[in-house]
């Protein structure tokens, strides 16, 4: 990666930012159909496939778990 400018302020929305909000945040209502935690995990698995298909990924590092939490 090239060295960046001293500071950058970008407006950048990635699919991951969307997923982190749309799937993990927002009001959980007693809808007749709602996503379970297992469903959401499934989405992150799907997302991995999706991102791998659109982005050139480096070797995954092991520092963080799938949901982005620190170990």
């Amino acid at each position: 990666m090239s060295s960046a400018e001293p500071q950058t302020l970008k407006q950048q929305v990635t699919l991951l930012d969307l997923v982190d909000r749309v799937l993990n945040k927002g009001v959980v209502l007693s809808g007749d159909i709602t996503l379970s935690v297992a469903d959401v995990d499934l989405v992150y698995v799907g997302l991995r496939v999706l991102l791998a298909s659109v982005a050139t990924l480096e070797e995954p590092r092991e520092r963080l778990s799938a949901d982005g939490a620190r170990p």
Partner: protein
Amino acid sequence: MSSAATEPLRRNSVGWYLYGVAAAEDASTRVTSPLAAGTEEEVELVAEGPLVGVVSRVSLHEFDESVLPERLSDANWLEQKIRAHEQVLERVLEDASVVPCRFCTVYRSEAELRRFLSERRGALEAALDRVRGKVEVGVKAFIDRDRFAAGLAKENDDFRELTVHVSTAEGGRAYLERRRLEQLVASELEGFRGEAAGRIHARLLAAAEDGLALALQAPELSGREEEMIFNGAYLVTANRDAFEEALASLARDVGGDGVDLELTGPWPAYNFVPEELGAE
């Protein structure tokens, strides 16, 4: 889940997908005009007392619990639906404050949807009050290791000397010195991460109504080479000038240490609505 889930799934049966809830007096029917090409969702406003539910009629064949897991593993379906969910809410946000619902909140009938809006009216109005006139923005901080090391060399004589050694040394000695430099950078970085994250959050929080530190995004998901050291969400007034000024000034201050800030949003206030909405 609900007993209805065990009913046999009828093809063509309709569900009501709820994107979010707004105040009836603010929400504009503009949101019901067709969305951008590529999405097929037709948006409707269902008014119930002082509230409106922003909904689309969807096929239960597509959203029923029995088929949902399969859908969720279809990356293309998922991306399209997630983007549509956000797109609809952003259009609502142009005119009205909105309480965003979580992805795939679906009712089996309009009556159930209306019953929900009416039973949870108080909690929904309280949630709306909290986000009225405000939006969420995201701020992520990444560290560029090379610039961090260069910053260290500028401040610290030993570091500078070692950096010079590394650039002039040859053969095996060069390797050892480079290793030593890398280890020193890593150990400095160890303390810096948390300290910088705390400083960034405090400065931004002072310019916002509220704020949260979120979980860091996994590098294999973010696709970023630089390490993320902070991921925050802030509730700010719809006029974001003060917050963006604070952010620009902060970016200048931390830039010398190799930290880049990224702004996302404005978002519906996903992180500033209650997760559970109790009945009254």
